[in-house]
């Protein structure tokens, strides 16, 4: 169920690395993350972190000096928003 979200993060990371000047890239901090044992809690933790990332992307887009980079960051945030919407409430068919 989370495989598409992982692929999305990987695609975002690759494009952001490509778009950002190499010298401006900070080394990724190391987080100690404990994944809850039960699937529902683990999923909730993933959703919470993804939501936080989405908000950070949107906030960074507001601060970005480059308009095109701002658009990219907003696109990343919107991609996460779509995936969150699907994970939180599967879309039913029209009608």
């Amino acid at each position, binding site marked *: 169920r989370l495989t598409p979200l992982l692929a999305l993060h990987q695609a975002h990371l690759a494009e952001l690395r490509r778009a950002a000047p190499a010298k401006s890239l900070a080394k990724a901090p190391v987080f100690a993350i404990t994944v809850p044992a039960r699937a529902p809690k683990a999923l909730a933790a993933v959703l919470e972190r993804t939501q936080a990332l989405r908000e950070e992307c949107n906030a960074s887009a*507001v601060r970005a000096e480059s308009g095109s980079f701002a658009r990219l960051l907003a696109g990343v945030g919107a991609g996460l928003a779509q995936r969150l919407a699907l994970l939180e409430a599967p879309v039913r068919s029209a009608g």
Partner: protein
Amino acid sequence: MRPRTRALDRTGTDSLQVALAGEHAAVYVFGVLAAQTSQTVLPKLWSDLDAAYLWHRAARDELVRRITEARQTPVAAAAAYRLPNAVDNVDLVTRAALVTEQRVTDTYGTLVAETAGGLRRWAIRSLDESAVRQLRFRGRPEIFPGTGGLGNQDR
């Protein structure tokens, strides 16, 4: 119905006008689509179309307000707009809704790039909401919604 693009000034006023032209079209199209859809037979689709219509109408009014505040004359709506496709059945209505929403999402992506500060923040929120609304019309999630086709469609 896609608004013409042209050189944008640094204040974002022109991109606001483009976004307004897009919202004028979206209001028209979603109004037609909701009218084509039976609230009784297809309550979910009708509700989604009606919600989209109301959202785009509010966005249109907000754009008019912001353009007027910038002492510009908001671009007027056309008398009518060409629908993205025929709307003879549910699938076609849904497709027209999706195409319209995708165009709006991209328009807000442009607005994000051409603005700053509070206006950009509003454009980001609008992009976000428009992208999520695509899913209600059978849109598939994208990697970078609103970026004019950057990246390919997500799985």
